C-alpha cells in the first residue's frame, strides 16, 4: 500500500474497487480464452536419448540443488568473499583469514561446481531440443494485453489506496496463472515470486544522524581516453554509508568501440582518502553514465568515523582534494501539511505526468485521459465535484484534449505551478553550471533522501538524489510510475516539475537523477524544492551557487 498508512477510502468503495478489478480479470480471461493457445515447446523429432535428457536433466538438477540447499548460503558467502578479497575494492585479507578462506573456498567450489555443471547440462539440453522455442511468443496477444490492462488498473487502484498492494498482486497473479493454465501464457517458474520479493525489499531509513556537506570541488581524473572532468557535489555521512556524490563529463571518444572497453568506469574512478588522523579509506564508484555524462557517488567502505574533521580525497590518478567532514551545512526540509486523500493525490500525480513527460521524445501532443479515471468514477471513488478531477479536466482542456471521461467535469483554475510549467515549456535559457546542494528531507512514506546537487543546462536541469528506502520506479508500457511528486520553484518565479531519468537501486539504497522541466531561469539564485508523498510533504529552500559545467 502506498504510503504505508491505513486505507482511507470508504469500505464500500474499496469493496467495489476490488470487485471491479476481479470482474475485469474474469472478462479478460474470457476474451483470451477465445484466442488460440500458444504452442508448447516439444521435443519434436529429437533422438530418444535427447528426449530423455530433456525430461530428466532439469528436474535432476533441481533436485540436486535442493539437496545441497542447506549448503547454499555458505557456498555463496564464501564465493562472494573470495571475490571481494581478490577484487580491488577491499584491502587484502590477513594470513589467518586467507588460510580459513582458502579451506572454505575449496569446499564452496567443490560443492558448487558439479551442481552448476548438472544444471547447465540440463538447460543446455533443453536449449538444443527447443531450438525454435527460444524465439517463441511468451503469450498470445489478447492474453498479454488483458493481463497488462488488469495489471495497470491494479497498480493504479493500489496507488489510490482503494485496494491493498497484496490484494492487487494476488488478482494479477491469479489471472496470469489462469491464463497459463489454459496455455494462453507461458507458465512462469518459481523465479517470479522471488524476483518480486527483491523488488519489494526496502531498507528502512537509517537510524542515527544524517550529515550532508556541500562541496563543489572540481577534479580532473586522467583516463586512457582523456581526462574525466568531475565535480564533487556533496559528502553524505549516514550510519550505513559514506559517499561523495559526483557529476562529470566523460572524455570525447571518436571511436565508439573504444568506449566499449570501459564497460564501467569503476577502474579510473577508484578513489582513496586519508582523514586528519591519518586513517585511510578506499572508495569505489557507484552510479551510471551515457556517452558523455556520468552521475553517481564515490562510496567509502568503511566510512570515516564521526570525529573525522576532513578527508583528502584522491580519485584515480588525480591530485588529492581536501573536503570537510564535519560542520554540516545541510538544509533540512520542513514537513508541511498532509496531502489530500490518496485518490485525489493519485489523480494529481497522473495529471503531473502530462507536465513532466512532455519533453520526452515521442510524447507528442496527443493527450488521453488516464485510463483509471473511468473505473474510479464507476466505483464511486471520485465524483465530478472532486477538486483533483476538476484540475485534471482543466489541464486536459488547456492541452486541447476533449476526453469524454471528463466531459461532464467542470474545470477549476489550473494550479499556478502547472500553468507556469506550461507557459515555460520550450524554454532554452537555462544557465550552464553545477550547484552543489545538501538538502536533507525528513522521512516520508518510509523513505529518506538527500539532494546533493543541481546540474543546469540550457534546455533542462537535473537534481541528484541519494535515498534510503526509495522505491524503484515502476516502468510499464512507456510510462513510469513515480513514487513521489517533486516540484521546485526558482526565485525568478519559474516552476519546475521533476521526473526520474535514471537511477541505481539496490539493497534499499538509491541514487536517482531527477530531470527538472522547464530549465532553471537564468536569473535564479535560489530554489525552493518540495517533495510530496502519500503521508506528507516537505519543502526546503536552497541558494544556488553556480560553478562551471564539468
Amino acid at each position, binding site marked *: 500500500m502506498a504510503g504505508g498508512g491505513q486505507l482511507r477510502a470508504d469500505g464500500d468503495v474499496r469493496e467495489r474497487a476490488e470487485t471491479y478489478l476481479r470482474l475485469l480479470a474474469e472478462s479478460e480471461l474470457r476474451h483470451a480464452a477465445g484466442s488460440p493457445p500458444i504452442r508448447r515447446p516439444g521435443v519434436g523429432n529429437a533422438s530418444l536419448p535427447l528426449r530423455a535428457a530433456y525430461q530428466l536433466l532439469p528436474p535432476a538438477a533441481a533436485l540436486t540443488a535442493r539437496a545441497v540447499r542447506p549448503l547454499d548460503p555458505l557456498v555463496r558467502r564464501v564465493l*562472494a568473499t573470495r571475490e571481494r578479497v581478490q577484487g580491488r575494492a577491499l584491502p587484502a585479507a590477513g594470513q589467518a583469514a586467507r588460510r580459513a578462506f582458502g579451506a572454505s573456498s575449496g569446499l564452496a567450489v567443490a560443492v558448487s561446481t558439479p551442481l552448476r555443471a548438472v544444471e547447465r547440462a540440463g538447460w543446455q539440453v533443453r536449449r538444443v531440443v527447443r531450438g525454435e522455442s527460444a524465439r517463441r511468443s511468451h503469450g498470445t496477444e489478447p492474453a498479454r494485453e488483458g493481463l497488462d490492462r488488469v495489471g495497470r488498473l491494479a497498480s493504479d487502484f493500489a496507488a489510490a489506496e482503494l485496494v491493498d498492494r497484496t490484494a492487487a498482486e494476488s488478482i494479477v497473479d491469479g489471472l496470469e496463472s489462469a491464463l497459463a493454465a489454459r496455455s494462453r501464457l507461458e507458465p512462469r517458474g518459481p523465479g517470479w515470486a522471488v524476483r518480486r520479493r527483491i523488488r519489494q525489499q526496502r531498507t528502512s531509513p537509517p537510524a542515527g544522524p544524517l550529515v550532508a556537506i556541500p562541496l563543489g570541488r572540481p577534479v580532473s581524473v586522467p583516463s586512457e581516453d582523456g581526462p574525466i572532468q568531475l565535480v564533487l557535489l556533496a559528502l553524505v555521512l549516514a550510519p550505513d554509508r559514506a559517499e561523495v556524490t559526483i557529476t562529470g563529463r566523460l572524455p570525447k571518444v571518436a571511436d565508439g568501440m573504444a568506449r566499449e572497453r570501459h564497460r564501467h568506469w569503476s577502474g579510473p574512478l577508484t578513489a582513496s582518502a586519508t582523514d586528519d588522523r591519518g586513517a585511510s579509506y578506499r572508495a569505489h564508484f557507484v552510479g551510471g553514465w551515457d556517452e558523455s555524462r556520468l552521475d553517481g557517488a564515490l562510496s567509502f567502505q568503511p566510512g570515516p568515523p564521526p570525529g573525522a574533521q576532513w578527508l583528502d580525497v584522491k580519485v584515480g590518478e588525480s591530485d588529492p582534494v581536501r573536503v570537510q567532514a564535519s560542520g554540516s551545512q545541510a538544509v533540512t526540509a520542513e514537513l508541511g501539511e498532509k496531502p489530500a486523500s490518496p485518490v485525489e493525490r493519485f489523480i494529481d500525480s497522473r495529471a503531473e505526468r502530462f507536465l513532466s513527460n512532455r519533453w520526452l521524445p515521442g510524447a507528442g501532443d496527443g493527450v488521453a485521459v488516464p485510463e483509471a479515471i473511468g473505473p474510479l468514477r464507476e466505483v464511486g471513488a471520485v465524483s465530478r465535484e472532486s477538486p483533483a478531477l476538476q484540475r485534471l479536466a482543466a489541464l486536459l482542456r488547456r492541452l486541447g484534449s476533449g476526453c469524454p471521461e471528463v466531459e461532464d467535469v467542470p474545470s477549476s483554475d489550473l494550479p499556478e505551478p502547472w500553468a507556469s510549467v506550461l507557459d515555460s515549456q520550450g524554454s532554452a535559457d537555462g544557465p550552464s553550471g553545477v550547484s552543489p546542494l545538501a538538502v536533507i528531507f525528513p522521512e516520508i512514506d518510509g523513505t529518506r533522501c538527500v539532494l546533493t546537487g543541481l546540474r543546469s543546462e540550457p534546455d533542462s536541469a537535473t537534481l541528484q538524489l541519494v535515498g534510503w528506502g526509495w522505491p524503484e520506479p515502476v516502468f510499464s508500457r512507456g510510462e513510469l510510475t513515480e513514487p513521489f511528486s517533486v516540484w521546485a520553484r526558482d526565485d525568478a518565479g519559474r516552476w519546475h516539475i521533476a521526473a526520474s531519468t535514471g537511477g*541505481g537501486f539496490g539493497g534499499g539504497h538509491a541514487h536517482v537523477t531527477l530531470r527538472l522541466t522547464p530549465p532553471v531561469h537564468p536569473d535564479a539564485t535560489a530554489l525552493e524544492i518540495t517533495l510530496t508523498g502519500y503521508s506528507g510533504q516537505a519543502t526546503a529552500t536552497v541558494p544556488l551557487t553556480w560553478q562551471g559545467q564539468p
Partner: protein
Amino acid sequence: MTAPWWAALGPAEAAVRCGGQQHRLRWEAGRLTAKDHPDAEGELVLGTLGGDQPDCIRLLSAWGEHSDDLNALMLGPRSAADTLTVDVAEAERLRLGPVGWVGYAPLTGGTRGAAPARPLTWGELWFRTLRSFAVNARGLPRGSATWGPGRAAVSVVSAQVTSQLISAAGSRQGPRGPRAFLPGAGQDLDRELARRAELLELLALGPAFQFRLCATVAAAWADREPGPARPALTAALAGRVAPAVASWLGADADAVQVSLADEQGGLARDGDRWRAGMRWVAAVWGAGLAVIDGNLVVDVTRAEYPEAHVLALDRPGGKPTPTAVAVQCEGAADSPQGPRWRIIGP
C-alpha cells in the same frame, strides 16, 4: 433446495503415480479417497509426523487443504468448454521451488551502464531506469535497453554487476541469460510455491476433478459470511454464471451482470442483474447442470446421481419450472465435456 450439494455429481476416478505404481483416486459423494490405501488416515497421520507420505496420501491431504481455497475458483474451469492444460510437470517444477537463482534481463553490450554500490553483497542489484513514452518495454529485445538522459531506454542490469554476481556467487547461466542471487527464498515463499504446486497437481487430475474441486470450494463458502472474500466470490460466481446465461440467451457474456446473493436461493433475475449464492456453483454448475437442452437450471431440488430434479427456466422472463433430468449414460461424469444431462420429464 434439500439435496446435498454433491447429490447430482457422479463419482470420478483418476489414476496417479504412487510409489512407482498406478493407483486410483476416487471422488464420490463429496469425498476423495485413495482406493489403494486402505489405511489412508493412518498414513496421513504418519506423514504429518514426518514419515514418508505416498503421493496418493499427499494428494488427499492437498485436496483437504484446498477445499476452501478461492484460488481454485480463479484457476479452475468456468464452463465445460473451458479447457485447462495444466500437467503434473508444471506442478513439479513449482514444487521443487527456486534453487536460489533467477534471471534478470541480460545486458548484451552498449556503452552505458551502472556500477555496483560496493563489493556486492547478497541480494544487491544495480540497474538503471529511464523513462520514455517513445519506448514500450516489451518492444525492446531483451537486453537491448540503454541508459542515458533523453535516451529511449528502460531498465538494464549492468553487465559488470551481472558478471560479478555470476563469478562471485557461482551462479548458473540458463537459457535466459545471467542470473542473480535471490535472498530470502524463505519459508513463506516455499509455502506459497508449494500451495500453488499442490493446486496445479489437483487440477492436473483432469476435468472431472477440476469441477469437483471448484464445487467443493464453492460449497465451503456457501454457508459462510463472505466478509472480505465477497469480491473474490462475486468474481468466481460471475465467471461461471455469465457464460451459462450468455449461452442460454445467445448473448455476450460481458453483458451479463451478476451479483452474489446473501441468501441461499438459486439463480434468479433481479432487475438487470442475475443473483445467486455460491451453492448454485456447487450444486448446479459443478454437476454440469447449468444449461440442459436449452433450459437454464436455477436450482437443484432433489438429486441422486444419475438423476436430478431441478428448477429450470425455459425462456427469458419465464418462471422456473420443476424438471427432471438424467445423465444420458453412465460414466459420463469422467468425460472431458462433463456429464451429458437430458430432460426426462417435468
